[in-house]
C-alpha cells in the first residue's frame, strides 16, 4: 500500500490534471438531472438571450437554456461514447483473441476483412453508412462500434500474437489446455496494459467522431442535446463576437485532452525508460 501512495506522488501534473477532470465530468454527467432546473427540450425564453443569472449561459437558437443543454449534452455524448467504446472493445478483442488462439483459416479471413474496412476513410464511411441506415442512436452506436472495432482488433491481434509465441503459452498448449484457458489465463493478463491505454484513446476517437457527426447534423438528433450539434446550431453567435458556442466545443477538447494526458502517462510508464 505504501508503494502505491509513493507512486501517486510520482504522477506527472498533466496526468493528475487529466484524472481530476475525468472524475469531474463523470460526476457531473451522473448528477445532471439533479443539478438542472430545466429539461433539455424545454423552451424557456427567446432565442439567443444573453448571459443572466436565470440563464447563466443564455439561451440557444430555439430559446432553450444553454447551461442545461450543456450539462445534458455532456451526459448524452459521454454515455453514448462509453457504450460505443465498450461495444467496439467487445467485438475487437473477442475477434482478435480468437484469431490468435484458434488461428487456422479464421485468422487470415478476419485480417483481410479488417484490412479492407480500414483502408476506407473512417469519417466518410460513417457518413455513408448513416445516410443509408438513418441516424438513430442505435445505428450511430453500431456503425461507430463496428468500424472502430477494427483498430481494437489490430491491436489485440498484434499484442496477443507477440504473447502467443512465448514458451509459456506453448507449454500450456502442450499441456492440453483449451482455447478459453489460453485466452483468459495465459494471453489476456499479459496484454492488459496496451489494451487499457487503447481503451482511453479509442474513447477519445469515438467521442470526437460522435461530436463531428453531430456537428455535421448526422449524429445525435435534436431535440436531444449534444455538444457537437450545439456548436453548429449556435455558430452564428460567433460572428457577433459571442463565445457561448465555443463552450461545448471547449468541453469536448478539455475531456479528450485529459484522457490523452492519462493515456500518455500510462504508455510512458509501461514502456519504462526505453525512451
Amino acid at each position, binding site marked *: 500500500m505504501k508503494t502505491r501512495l509513493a507512486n501517486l506522488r510520482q504522477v506527472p501534473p498533466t496526468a493528475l490534471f487529466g484524472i481530476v477532470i475525468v472524475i469531474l465530468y463523470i460526476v457531473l454527467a451522473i448528477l445532471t438531472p439533479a443539478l438542472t432546473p430545466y429539461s433539455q427540450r424545454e423552451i424557456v425564453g427567446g432565442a439567443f438571450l444573453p448571459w443572466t443569472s436565470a440563464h447563466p449561459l443564455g439561451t440557444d437558437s430555439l430559446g432553450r437554456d444553454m447551461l442545461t443543454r450543456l450539462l445534458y449534452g455532456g451526459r448524452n455524448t459521454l454515455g453514448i461514447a462509453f457504450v460505443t467504446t465498450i461495444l467496439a472493445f467487445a467485438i475487437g478483442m473477442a475477434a482478435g483473441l480468437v484469431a490468435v488462439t484458434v488461428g487456422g483459416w479464421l485468422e487470415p479471413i478476419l485480417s483481410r476483412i479488417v484490412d479492407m474496412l480500414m483502408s476506407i476513410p473512417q469519417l466518410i464511411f460513417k457518413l455513408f453508412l448513416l445516410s443509408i441506415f438513418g441516424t438513430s442512436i442505435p445505428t450511430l452506436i453500431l456503425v461507430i462500434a463496428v468500424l472502430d472495432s477494427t483498430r481494437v482488433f489490430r491491436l489485440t491481434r498484434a499484442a496477443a500474437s507477440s504473447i502467443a509465441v512465448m514458451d509459456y503459452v506453448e507449454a500450456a498448449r502442450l499441456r492440453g489446455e483449451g482455447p478459453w484457458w489460453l485466452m483468459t489465463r495465459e494471453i489476456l493478463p499479459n496484454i492488459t496494459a496496451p489494451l487499457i491505454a487503447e481503451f482511453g484513446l479509442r474513447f477519445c476517437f469515438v467521442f470526437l467522431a460522435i461530436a463531428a457527426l453531430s456537428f455535421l447534423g448526422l449524429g445525435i438528433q435534436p431535440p436531444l442535446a449534444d455538444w457537437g450539434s450545439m456548436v453548429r446550431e449556435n455558430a452564428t453567435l460567433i460572428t457577433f463576437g459571442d463565445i457561448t458556442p465555443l463552450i461545448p466545443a471547449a468541453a469536448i477538447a478539455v475531456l479528450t485532452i485529459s484522457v490523452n494526458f492519462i493515456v500518455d502517462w500510462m504508455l510512458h510508464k509501461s514502456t*519504462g525508460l526505453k525512451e
Partner: protein
Amino acid sequence: MSDPTALLKLRDLRLDGQGASGTTHILRGIDLDLAKGEVLGVIGESGAGKSSLGLAAMGFCRNGCRFAGGSANFDGNELIGARPAVLSGLRSTRIAYVAQSAAASFNPAWRLIDQYCEFPVLRGLMDRKAAEKDAIEIYEQLRLPNPKEIGFRYPHQVSGGQLQRAMTAMAMSCRPDLIIFDEPTTALDVTTQIEVLSAIRSAVNELGTAALYITHDLAVVAQMADRIMVMRHGEVVEEAATRTMLDAPREAYTKSLWAVRNIRPPAKPLPPTDTAPLMQISNVTAGYGSNDTALQDIGFDVHAGRTRAVVGESGSGKSTAARVIAGLLPPRSGEVRLDGQLLPPDYRKRSRDQLRKVQLIYQMADTALNPRQRIGDIIARPVSFYAGLRGRALRERVREILSDIELDPDTYMDRSPAELSGGQKQRVGIGRALAAEPQFIICDEVTSALDQIVAENILTLLQRVQRDYGLSYMFITHDLSTVRAIADDVTVMQRGKIVEQGTATHILECPQHEYTRKLLASVPEMDPDWLSKQVSGVDSIV
C-alpha cells in the same frame, strides 16, 4: 602495477544506472592499466559490469547511466566529462570498438566497405580510393572469403562469422592504438568461433594494437589475452598474467569459476539398453515449408532412465527434432513411439495422458514462465490438470515439488517470476515439468542462457531428479562440456541429418565422423597454447 607508459589508465571509475527501482552501481571503482600493444582479457558472469567497462573505456555510457566518479585516462586525454568533440576525435582513429552482434551493429543501408571507409576518409587519413584498397587488404588479413568483393555487399547479405570479421576489420581501419572487443564470438557457433578467434588474434598481433577483450568464456580469454582481469558485481576480483591466473588463482570466486570448467559426471550405474526403448524416433523427415527440409530421415531411441544428448550447431535441426517429438511440428514422414505406442503427429490429437508423459523444459526461463502467474500457481496447474488434485492436497503436492527443486515453499510459493533469478526461474521450469509426473523430458538448451556456476547447479538437479524418478531425457545442446557432464548417449547432427551416434564415451573419446572431430576440436580449452596448436594443426592438414 602503476605503469607510467600505460596507454589506458582507469582510476576508481564509477558508473551508476538509473532504473525504475532507483540507482544501481554498475561499476564500483575500477582500477586498470593497459600498456601499448597489450591484450587484457576481462572476464566475469552476466551483470558483472564488463560491457559497461568496455564502453566506459571509450568515455561512453548508455542512456540512463552516468559516470559517478573516478577517471579514465587515454594516452594523456581524460575521457570522463570530456567535450564531445574530444571524444569523437579519439574514437575510430585511436580507440575502436567491436560489438557482440555484428549483424545489428552494421548499418543496413550502407555497404560494408562504405562503413569501413567512413572514418579514414572523414578524418583525412586517406582518400576514398586508398581506403578501399586498404579495406581489401585488411579483409584479406582477417581471412574473409572473396576479400575483393565482400565489401561491396550489404550487411544482410553476409553470414554472421564473416560480419564479425568485417567489424573487426572496420575497427582497424584507422589503425587505432586500442580496440575494445565486447564478446565478439559469443553469438557464433564453435566451428565458426575458432576461425574468427584466430583471425582476430593474428590481426591484433600483426598491427601491434592494444586490446580489451571482454568475454564470459575462460577458455576463449586464455587464448587471446596476455593478462586476465576477473570482475564481479562491478568490482575487480583479481588480476594477473594469463598463465599465473590459470594455474594459481588466488580468490575463492575465481577458483569456483575455474572449478566449473572441470566438472565430470558422478559415476552412476547406467540403466540397461537391452529392454525395449521408451522413446523411439524412426525415419522422421520434417520441414517448415513445402520446400524446406529441416530434418532428413532421422531416427534414434531413448531408453528408460537414460539421457540422450542431441548435439549440433545452429541450423542442424536439433530443435526441430524436439518440436516433432512434442507434436508441435507434424513430420512429413516417419513416426514417434512412446512405450511402443504410436504418438499422433499433432499434439492436438494426443490424449491427455500422452501429453502428460512428454514434457519440455525451455532454454529461456524468462519466456517460459507466465509473468502474471505466481510460482505456486505455475506448478499447481499441471497437478490439478492431470491428477485432478484440489485444495489442501494440491497445496501439499506443490510444496513437495518446490522442495524437490530446492526452492523453499514458504518463500517462493507466492512470488512472481520477475522476483526470481535466472537459475531459480529455470528450477521452476523443471518443477512445472515434474508436476506432470512425466516419463520423458525434452531439455532444450536449458543451461545455455545461464552463467557457468548456475548452469552446473541446474545440471546436478536434473541428474538427481532423473535418478529419483527414473526419467529419460533428450538433451538438446550446442555445448560439448554439457554433453560431457550429463549424456549417456550422443547423437551428432549437421544440416538436418544425423552424422554419428552412439554412447557418450564412444563419441567423445573416439569419434568416427570428420564433422564430430572438427566439432570436438573447436571447443576452446584452458591451455593458452590451444588455439595455436589447433590453427597449426588445421594448417598442416591443408
